[in-house]
């Protein structure tokens, strides 16, 4: 506890309480200090709560009480769960105070811990700065611009605001040409100097960084998903993608633009065409030509709305505010103007119509012209073909002779081949051959004439001659050399066969090679896909590793911050040292205990030896002296003295021993007191929810307080007083001079009560026949529902497993029947009988009202004292029940089955009667537990009506009668 107290005092000092250095533990705290410490803690924890409380304990008792109560409620508001009240502060017990102060100290804010909880790193710093700035701004009131001090000007003025506009920055980077590197090293301005205005530097930097970051991020995601799957190195992938994008852009451009005029296929773009492609040229010289498909369509749609325009103009004209001057002339002039304007508008409209028609005509003309151009182009193509043919023919012309010879040779070769093939296939059929050849010649001739168209006469001659020659050759050869032809054919076929063989020879290895290559390709593909998956895995791993690294770095930063934020004096070492100290203390104490034990033993031994020595010395001295005693007077005297001394010594020893016993007894008694407290006071409402030790400690303190005021009774001195003493919770009683009725009843009562744990069950009987009919009193049996109740009660009691249960009933049939169901022995008490209603027995309330309205009203006036004619009042019943109550106190577990009025008296308050009541008497009061057995019964309780006057009306008297048959 010492250590705890030290920490506590240290914390309290930190919270601003001046704890004097001589105070080392909570035990020494005076109430003033407790109050001051608590108030200061509350002020730190929640200033709103602590502000109205004073740290100084006022001298006046009522003021003290008020302050302490306020403080207690403040503590409860802070969440202190323990028992706290004014007494905690004013009459403090060490334990309570410590608990309360510990709670408050724990609630004290820790600046360092708060600092550590905030996010670390640059972003954390930024966030902190932002929040501080906002807090600052929110904390200051708005001040009109004229009244602003420089500080307010900074906070609320607009002078320091700049538009968030950026500009491109150039940041040094590696790579690029050596000149660029030189530029970076030398002439490049630093980033803050780059923007035209210094205020634009932060936005520019921010934008540049964001752009870089997002580019990197996008590239990461894309490369991770699509890029890797393409199986290309990054540069190639980018190049291909760029190419594709360019192609797509070109495609869309091509679709959107008019066809390009024919010209040189590649090279510089025609500016006129470009302008056409991108819309009308801009009027402003500085800007590039603007306009897109969108603007063009917009333009058109806007132009086609003259009606709307007209309407708008009209509306505008009508809405013109009429001037206040000469209305008439003004009106006239306005009308004239209006008419003129309208005429102009109409003219304009007509013009627009005309222009539109013209535009349409022009468009039509354009289409026609385009068609014509297309036709012309087609015609041009055909003419060009013809021209090319002619040019070729012309080329042939100059060398006509040579060409003719060539032609002849060609013709001969053709005919030769032709002939050979024919002969080989068909054998010799001269007659038919002639026909064929003639036809061939005819065709040939036709072709020739058609192709050349030049010099037909000469050509005819040539061809005729050729035909003649051909014919001659044909006739000469025909049918002459069939054998030779055969030979040639055979040789050719053989050659073909050999060629096929050669081909086969070559084909085999080629095919094998082809297969091999294919297999190679497949394996390469497999390999590449494997690599791809590997690369992907690697990529993912690198990503996760980067994440991990980032997280760890953050964690590291946070930890470093926390470490820095930790106060030096609450380090681990301090705690370790304290623990070691405590352990050392314990060891020291143990050693001390051991030493004391040894000392005690030594002491005991010494005492024994001393006592023995004394005895021996006495006996020796006695013997020595006794011999001489008869002879010498002096010796006799000495002997007498010795005897006296001996006696005194014995007395002394006896006294010392007595003291020891008494001390032991005192200790025993103290233990006994503690035990008694434990038995009796634990259930006291003062100590609700407290631990046993606390109760004992607190009550001992209370006993100390009692000692200040009370005086213990002395058996001898106070024997003339009348009192009762109870020893050890009813083990022994001492009644002194008990006289008279009340005193002896009290003794009787006190001797009957006990605190052994037990339960008293009170139950009304089950619903009776007369209850059912709404009649009071009588001695009827149970109704079916009443019997059901009896079984339910029996079931319940059986389930409770009550030790030594005594069952009591009245002499009435309904209680006996209820108890019968329990099937256990029961005791009948006449004292438990229901209130005797005298002349009103077995009557319903209505009948009573009808027959004895006056009685009925009188009963309502004072139900407790009203006695039914020839019957009983509640007062009588209470008298009758006294022995029952006394007996109940004496008994342990009892079940009382009784009646409504009796139960009411037993409890002294009204409760739900169709239920079992479990009473657990404790030292202070009685715990009541209502158990409903789930069996309904009619209500027989009648509320006291408003009007209890004797002369009241029947309806009023019966207003509260419960329902019955």
């Amino acid at each position, binding site marked *: 506890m010492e250590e705890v107290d030290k920490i506590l005092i240290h914390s309290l000092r930190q919270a601003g309480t001046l704890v004097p250095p001589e105070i080392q533990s909570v035990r020494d705290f005076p109430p003033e200090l407790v109050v001051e410490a608590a108030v200061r803690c509350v002020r730190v924890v929640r200033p709103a709560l602590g502000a109205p409380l004073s740290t100084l304990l006022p001298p006046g008792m009522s003021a003290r009480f008020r302050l302490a109560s306020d403080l207690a409620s403040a503590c409860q508001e802070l969440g202190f769960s323990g028992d706290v009240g004014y007494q905690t502060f004013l009459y403090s017990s060490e334990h309570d105070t410590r608990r309360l102060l510990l709670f408050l100290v724990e609630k004290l804010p820790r600046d360092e811990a708060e600092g550590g909880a905030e996010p670390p790193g640059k972003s954390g710093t930024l966030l902190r700065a932002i929040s501080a700035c906002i807090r600052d701004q929110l904390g200051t009131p708005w001040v009109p611009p004229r009244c602003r001090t420089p500080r307010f000007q900074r906070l609320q003025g607009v002078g320091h605001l700049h*538009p*968030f*506009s*950026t*500009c*491109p*920055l*150039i940041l040094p980077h590696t790579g*690029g*040409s050596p*000149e*660029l*590197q*030189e*530029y970076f090293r030398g*002439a*490049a*301005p630093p980033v803050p100097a*780059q*923007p*035209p205005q210094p205020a634009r530097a932060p936005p520019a930097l921010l934008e540049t960084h964001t752009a870089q970051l997002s580019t990197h991020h*996008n590239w990461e995601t*894309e490369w991770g998903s699509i890029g890797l799957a393409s199986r290309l190195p990054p540069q190639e992938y980018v190049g291909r*993608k*760029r190419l594709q*994008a360019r192609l*797509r*852009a070109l495609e869309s451009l091509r679709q959107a633009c008019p066809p390009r005029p024919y010209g040189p296929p590649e090279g510089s773009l025609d500016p006129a065409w470009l302008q056409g492609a*991108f819309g009308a040229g*801009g009027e*402003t010289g*500085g*800007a*590039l*030509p*603007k*306009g*897109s498909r969108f*603007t063009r369509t917009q333009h058109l749609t806007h132009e086609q709305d003259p009606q709307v325009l007209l309407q708008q103009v009209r509306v505008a004209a009508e809405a013109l505010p009429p001037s206040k001057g000469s209305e008439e002339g003004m009106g006239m002039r306005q009308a004239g103007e209006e008419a003129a304007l309208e005429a102009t508008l109409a003219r304009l409209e007509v013009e627009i119509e005309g222009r539109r028609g013209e535009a349409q005509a022009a468009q039509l003309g354009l289409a026609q012209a385009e068609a014509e151009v297309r036709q012309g182009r087609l015609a041009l193509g055909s003419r060009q073909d013809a021209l090319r043919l002619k040019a070729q023919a012309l080329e042939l012309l100059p060398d006509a002779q040579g060409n003719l010879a060539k032609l002849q040779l060609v013709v001969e070769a053709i005919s030769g081949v032709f002939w050979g093939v024919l002969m080989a296939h068909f054998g010799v059929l001269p007659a038919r051959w002639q026909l064929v050849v003639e036809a061939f010649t005819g065709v040939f001739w036709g072709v020739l004439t058609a192709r050349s168209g030049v010099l037909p006469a000469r050509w005819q001659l040539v061809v005729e001659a050729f035909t003649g020659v051909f014919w001659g050759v044909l006739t000469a050869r025909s049918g002459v050399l069939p054998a030779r032809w055969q030979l040639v054919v055979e040789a050719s076929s053989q050659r073909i066969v050999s060629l096929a063989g050669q081909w086969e020879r070559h084909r085999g290895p080629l095919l094998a090679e082809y297969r091999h290559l294919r297999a190679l390709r497949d394996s390469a593909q497999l390999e590449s896909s494997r690599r791809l998956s590997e690369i992907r895995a690697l990529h993912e791993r690198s990503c996760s590793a980067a994440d991990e690294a980032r997280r760890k770095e953050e964690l590291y930063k946070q930890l470093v911050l926390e470490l820095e934020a930790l106060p030096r004096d609450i380090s681990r070492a301090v705690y370790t040292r304290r623990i070691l100290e405590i352990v050392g203390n314990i060891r020291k104490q143990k050693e001390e205990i051991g030493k004391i034990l040894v000392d005690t033993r030594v002491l005991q031994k010494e005492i024994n030896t001393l006592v023995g020595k004394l005895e021996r010395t006495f006996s020796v001295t006695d013997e020595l002296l006794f011999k001489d005693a008869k002879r010498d007077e002096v010796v006799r005297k000495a002997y007498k003295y010795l005897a006296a001394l001996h006696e005194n010594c014995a007395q002394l020893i006896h006294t010392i021993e007595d003291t020891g016993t008494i001390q032991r007894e005192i200790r025993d008694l103290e233990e006994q007191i503690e035990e008694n407290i434990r038995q009796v006071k634990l259930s006291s409402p003062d100590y609700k929810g407290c631990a046993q030790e606390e109760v004992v400690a607190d009550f001992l303190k209370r006993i100390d307080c009692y000692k200040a005021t009370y005086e213990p009774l002395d058996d001898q001195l106070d024997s003339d007083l009348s009192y009762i003493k109870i020893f050890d919770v009813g083990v022994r009683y001492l009644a002194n001079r008990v006289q008279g009725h009340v005193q002896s009843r009290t003794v009787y009562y006190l001797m009957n009560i006990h605190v052994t744990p037990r339960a008293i069950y009170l139950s009304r009987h089950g619903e009776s026949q007369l209850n059912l009919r709404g009649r009071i009193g009588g001695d009827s049996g149970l109704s079916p529902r009443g019997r059901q109740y009896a079984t339910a009660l029996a079931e319940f009691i059986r389930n409770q497993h009550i030790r030594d249960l005594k069952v009591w009933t009245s002499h009435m049939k309904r209680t006996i029947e209820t108890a019968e169901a329990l099937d256990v022995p029961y005791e009948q008490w006449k004292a438990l009988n229901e209130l005797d209603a005298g002349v009103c027995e077995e009557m319903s309330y209505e009948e009573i009202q009808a027959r004895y309205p006056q009685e009925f009203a009188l009963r309502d006036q004072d139900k407790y004292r009203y006695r039914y004619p020839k019957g009983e009042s509640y007062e009588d019943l209470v008298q009758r029940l006294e022995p029952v109550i006394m007996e109940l106190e004496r008994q342990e577990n009892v079940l009382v089955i009784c009646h409504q009025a009796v139960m009411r008296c037993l409890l002294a308050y009204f409760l739900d009667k169709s239920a079992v009541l479990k009473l657990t008497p404790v030292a202070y009061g009685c715990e009541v537990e209502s158990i409903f057995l789930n069996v309904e019964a009619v209500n027989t309780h009648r509320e006291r009506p408003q009007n209890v006057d004797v002369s009241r009306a029947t309806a009023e008297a019966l207003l509260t009668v419960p329902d019955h048959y």
Partner: protein
Amino acid sequence: MLRLLEKLPPGQALEFLHKIVDGICGRAYPRYQDYGSAWSLTEWMEVLEETVAYFKTAVGRNMSDEEVAEQVTELNSNYQEAITKCLKGRKEEIRNALVERVNAISSTQLQDFDWQLKLALSSDKISMLQMPLLNLDLDVRENGEIKPISIEMNKEELQNLINALEAANKVVLQLK
């Protein structure tokens, strides 16, 4: 035609040229007050215009080194060297700037944007509104002049805008 450049001390030429390039790339042009001792105002305008035009044509036409050098033969060799050095080093940057300008071929182009978050506490109809509103300022260049456009949006509208922009960004990424 760049003869005027020779009026500048040769040591400052490279720096001056770099500043001109900075101006082309959207940063600050050199200031007359720094070079007032070398040129008169008309000369200054001329030299500025011509240098800019020279750089633009040299990069825009993608001229070879010889062609570039050909145009400045009339200059002193020191200045020639400075011009070639500057051009070689900054070519890529100038090209990017020119490409940017060509990209801005359509009628309007977003130049810059800024935003402010506001909390509307009440309106003319509702006394307790507590609705966050975003004020988006767009600096749009239209026909060569910058025009501010201010839009106030609530949460849903802002979300719509962001969605549209994200979709557009996706398309742009495919073309990148």
